[in-house]
């Protein structure tokens, strides 16, 4: 029985699925057509390929347009819209909700691939068209298959972005799905869930599209490399791919750093980079792409150099993009078996895509003919083994066969030069730099992929166990346990390797441009980078002194040196060699940018200064190892010294989904002390002997201006203020660190940062109340227990509650307190000071017939209630319960404030690097046009 649902856009679901099916079919046709056209370029196969591609493009663009129509019409009957959109989201976020889920992510990725392919086609690629477009269409077909949403029994083939909520598997058979008017009847359909509030940020609008464009732009060089292998022409594609790969370098680099900026601005993990698997997995393809594009450059000037390495770098950059897509969605990364994206159910498909792309690439590396056929047969057999036998073992087998294929290709048909380039040539050092970057990528991948290796180690567990038992090797034992995990100490895990590598390859970017292709430069030329080297050494010394680097930080200082040298040398190159010809300066500009990024990252990270520290408590004195000096407790209205500022937590207010905590910052002025004033310092009292303005250290003033008070009188004790070098000066600025009220993910702090030209003051809330605490109707909050001895005191609101004295209640006092003669009673005499007149009162601890009679003392006008629940005579300690009324309560926050010096170099470097890489793209394009006149 067909139900006609009311007010539902049933047509849109059917139309959307039609478009996606069309795209899949078109892609398939295009792939077949183009593959056949490689051998017969003038045949009708080419026409089939082109038309198939057009149909595919129409299908994908149509589907994207349709989803946007659904988004802007707020059609919440669709699962994708309901999950990622709600009415409260502003237009720009509604726009971004498109890529809130995986389905949209795939579509966005395909959108950019299509756009780049269209640009490629418009440039009349000639004989490259068929093979490049064949791979493109193949990849696009595979990607569009992930959106088909077909079920074969329990096996899901793709996720359908046009799935309606009533059709979702978890809602199947629910009674409401049979109600034609369910949209009007069920209130849940009036509004969607909306994007996770953590993602509701303007970075969500620009970061994913940039990153996906970066990912998409690694495909073009990859397909060109395959085209080169296919047509056995190792030259043409390398020239054509240079511009595309530098475009990828520019966009992917910008996208990665945008992610860092997002993390820095909106998430509170205290920095812009955390070596998180998700971050690493976009950095690694970029590093490999940079290595690859430099090898392409070498091949432009010296064709036939390091051909295998060039193929590998260019191929791997795309394969690593796919690998990281797989890795971050697979849930393998979780230490536990908690998967992050399991619900999508397309993991096998993603794995097949990854293995398919890598398999194809290594097949092409083999010499054409029988070897490729044998290779394919082995791989297919192993792939079947993955499904029916041991997945880990068979996958490992596939990877080993791929590696062997690459090696075989290198040893047989790929061109190799016997001629060694001289040491001081540009190509040699570019190659070295590229390989060092690749090494850096390998190391990061290795650390990120440890959980994957654990899976591969599982089948060998017994073997390693036996090895451990026979040799006692610690390594064998760890491998047998197969629960390797990347270390949590970034210095040991990443920096120990990455810093020396970066020192080397950034140093190489400083002088390599001064060298020439093919021949050793003249002596004059050789000395050209010398002046930048000397200035870099001088500047490094200045840096090391200014930021007080220690001897153990030598690797960092070395890295700072190579960054500075690279910046100066590349700037000098533009002046000295290029004489200001900007057209040729792309490489230099990009190198300056990259060096600035690393310089900013190293300095801001190594010399970050946590200026918030707790003024109260002596934890640090008890045990130095356990001290925590990074968090500051701020009571509402109090003004405290924090680093170079005085800070005051002024108010909390709620704005939308945020609780904002306004903290005012004041300048610090030196404190003036007048003759006769008494101060407390480290528990001792001092009196001022002559009026003066305080120096930063008390010790410097002590001799001249202070005299020790050995036996202070009561007045002195009461008047003595803690010594402080400064006092709050004029108001400077206000920061509003926030706590985001997030029902889905738990409340999350969001930092607020004051930016200066040379540093950032970065603050976030470590603890704060987002709403008033619970209280009864009269405003009394839950009582707190305190053990109090004589002379102990407590802060209650803005007052101090002190236990002045203890006395036993004598027989003649008992009637005064309304006690019976048999009662035992101790009296605690309290005094409440501050905020109005001092109030003294007495609370009793009463025991009658071995029962404790509660005696509640209520000071309504002061908003305090006190009760003694117990008395321990041996320690003369009262177990006191104190209630506070909301009317006197003071709010407080625990805040952390960090100064990141020179962090702006990083953002500046990012912009410069992107510009430089784009300048290179433009220049490459110009050179290509000059060399090959545009065909009519």
């Amino acid at each position, binding site marked *: 029985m067909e139900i006609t649902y009311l007010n539902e856009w049933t047509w849109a679901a059917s139309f959307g699925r039609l478009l996606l099916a069309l795209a899949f079919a078109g892609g398939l046709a295009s792939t077949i057509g183009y593959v056949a056209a490689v051998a017969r370029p003038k045949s009708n196969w080419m026409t089939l390929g082109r038309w198939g591609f057009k149909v595919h493009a129409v299908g994908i663009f149509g589907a994207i347009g349709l989803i946007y129509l659904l988004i802007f019409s707020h059609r919440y009957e669709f699962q994708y819209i309901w*999950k990622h959109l709600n009415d409260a989201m502003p237009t720009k976020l509604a726009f971004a909700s498109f890529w809130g889920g995986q389905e949209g992510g795939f579509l966005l990725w395909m959108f950019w691939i299509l756009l780049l392919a269209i640009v490629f086609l418009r440039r009349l690629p000639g004989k490259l068209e068929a093979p490049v477009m064949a791979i493109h269409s193949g990849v696009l077909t595979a990607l569009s298959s992930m959106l088909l949403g077909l079920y074969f029994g329990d096996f899901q083939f793709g996720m359908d972005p046009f799935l309606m909520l009533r059709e979702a598997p978890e809602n199947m058979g629910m009674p409401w799905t049979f109600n034609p008017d369910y949209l009007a009847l069920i209130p849940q359909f009036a509004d969607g869930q909306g994007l996770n509030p953590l993602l509701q940020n303007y970075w969500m609008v620009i970061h994913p599209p940039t990153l996906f464009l970066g990912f998409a732009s690694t495909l073009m060089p990859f397909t060109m490399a395959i085209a080169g292998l296919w047509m056995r022409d190792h030259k043409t594609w390398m020239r054509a791919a240079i511009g595309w790969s530098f475009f990828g370098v520019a966009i992917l680099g910008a996208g990665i750093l945008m992610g860092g900026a997002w993390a820095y601005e909106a998430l509170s993990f205290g920095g812009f980079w955390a070596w998180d698997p998700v971050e690493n997995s976009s950095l690694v393809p970029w590093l490999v792409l940079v290595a690859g594009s430099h090898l392409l450059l070498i091949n432009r000037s010296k064709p036939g150099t390091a051909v295998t390495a060039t193929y590998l770098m260019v191929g791997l950059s795309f394969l690593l993009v796919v690998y990281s897509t797989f890795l971050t969605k697979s849930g393998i990364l979780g230490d536990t078996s908690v998967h992050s994206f399991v619900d999508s159910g397309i993991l096998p498909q993603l794995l097949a895509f990854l293995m398919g792309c890598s398999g194809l690439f290594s097949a092409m590396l083999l010499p054409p003919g029988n070897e490729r056929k044998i290779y394919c047969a082995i791989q297919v057999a192993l792939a079947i083994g993955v499904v029916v036998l041991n997945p880990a073992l068979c996958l490992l087998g596939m990877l080993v066969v791929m590696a062997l294929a690459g090696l075989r290709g290198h040893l047989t048909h790929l061109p190799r030069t016997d001629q060694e380039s001289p040491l001081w040539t540009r190509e040699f050092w570019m190659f070295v730099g590229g390989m060092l970057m690749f090494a850096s990528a390998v190391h990061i991948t*290795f650390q990120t992929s440890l959980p994957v290796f654990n899976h591969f180690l599982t089948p060998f567990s017994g073997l390693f166990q036996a090895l451990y038992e026979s040799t006692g090797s610690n390594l064998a034992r760890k491998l047998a346990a197969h629960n390797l995990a990347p270390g949590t100490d970034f210095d040991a895990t990443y920096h120990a390797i990455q810093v020396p590598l970066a020192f080397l390859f950034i140093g190489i970017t400083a002088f390599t441009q001064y060298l020439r292709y093919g021949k050793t430069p003249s002596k004059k030329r050789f000395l050209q980078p010398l002046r930048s080297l000397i200035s870099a050494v001088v500047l490094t010394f200045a840096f090391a002194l200014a930021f007080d680097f220690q001897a153990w930080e030598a690797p960092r200082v070395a890295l700072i040196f190579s960054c500075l040298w690279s910046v100066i040398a590349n700037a000098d190159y533009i002046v000295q060699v290029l004489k200001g010809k900007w057209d040729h300066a792309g490489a230099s500009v990009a190198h300056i940018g990259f060096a600035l990024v690393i310089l900013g990252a190293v300095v801001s990270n190594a010399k970050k200064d946590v200026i918030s520290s707790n003024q109260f408590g002596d934890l640090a004195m008890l045990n130095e190892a356990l001290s*925590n000096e990074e968090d500051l407790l701020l009571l509402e209205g109090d003004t405290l010294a924090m680093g170079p500022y005085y800070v005051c937590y002024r108010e909390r207010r709620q704005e939308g989904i945020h609780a904002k905590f306004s903290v005012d910052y004041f300048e610090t002025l030196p404190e003036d002390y007048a003759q006769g004033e008494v101060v407390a310092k480290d528990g001792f009292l001092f009196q001022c002997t002559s009026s003066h303005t305080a120096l930063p250290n008390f010790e410097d003033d002590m001799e001249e201006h202070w005299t020790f008070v050995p036996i202070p009188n009561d007045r002195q004790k009461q008047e003595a203020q803690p010594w402080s070098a400064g006092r709050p000066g004029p108001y400077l600025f206000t920061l509003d660190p926030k706590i985001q009220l997030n029902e889905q993910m738990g409340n999350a702090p969001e930092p607020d940062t004051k930016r200066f030209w040379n540093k950032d003051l970065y603050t976030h809330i470590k603890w704060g109340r987002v709403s008033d605490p619970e209280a009864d109707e009269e405003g009394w909050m839950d009582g707190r227990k305190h053990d109090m001895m004589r002379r102990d005191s407590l802060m209650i609101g803005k007052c101090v509650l002190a236990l002045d004295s203890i006395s036993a209640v004598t027989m003649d006092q008992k009637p005064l307190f309304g006690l019976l003669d048999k009662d035992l009673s101790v009296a605690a005499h309290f005094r409440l000071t501050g905020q109005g007149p001092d109030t003294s009162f007495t609370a009793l601890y009463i025991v009658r017939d071995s029962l404790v009679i509660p005696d509640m003392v209520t000071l309504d006008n002061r908003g305090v209630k006190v009760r003694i629940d117990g008395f321990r005579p041996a320690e003369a300690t009262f177990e006191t319960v104190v209630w506070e009324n909301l009317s006197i309560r003071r709010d407080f926050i625990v805040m*952390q404030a960090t100064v990141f010096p020179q962090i702006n170099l990083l953002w500046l470097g990012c912009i410069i690097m992107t510009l430089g890489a784009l300048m290179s793209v433009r220049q490459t394009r110009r050179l290509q046009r000059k060399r090959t006149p545009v065909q009519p």
Partner: protein
Amino acid sequence: MSRTNIFVILLVAILMGSLFSVFSQNSESVVFERAFAEPGVEFKISGTLNTDHPVLYDPEVSVTETRFHMRDKDGVTHPVILREAKPTGLEQSESIDLYGQVVDGEFIAGEMLMKCPSKYNEQSHDLAEAVELN
């Protein structure tokens, strides 16, 4: 042998060496039993938050003291003290690494690292439940 080859071999050697150092580095974690057997020595203990016990954090008493119970890899639960403000998302954490030592019969940690569900994690939106509640 050409210089390029020598360079590549050197690079591979250095890389392999550094990768194997990862295995030999003692990133292994111990269990409570060991830490309590050797008080005063710093250890890393990995485990999970035991949610049967409350997480106690009262900044008015101490800003930098969080008390909770942790279950180590042997399944043994111990109360621990963390000398830090209560980290956001502790209750949601999937696993915890504590760096600390036993002092006077209590495990006191100076540093803690958590593994939390990633922000990329999609929530399971259970419409069925929501509808049933209505």
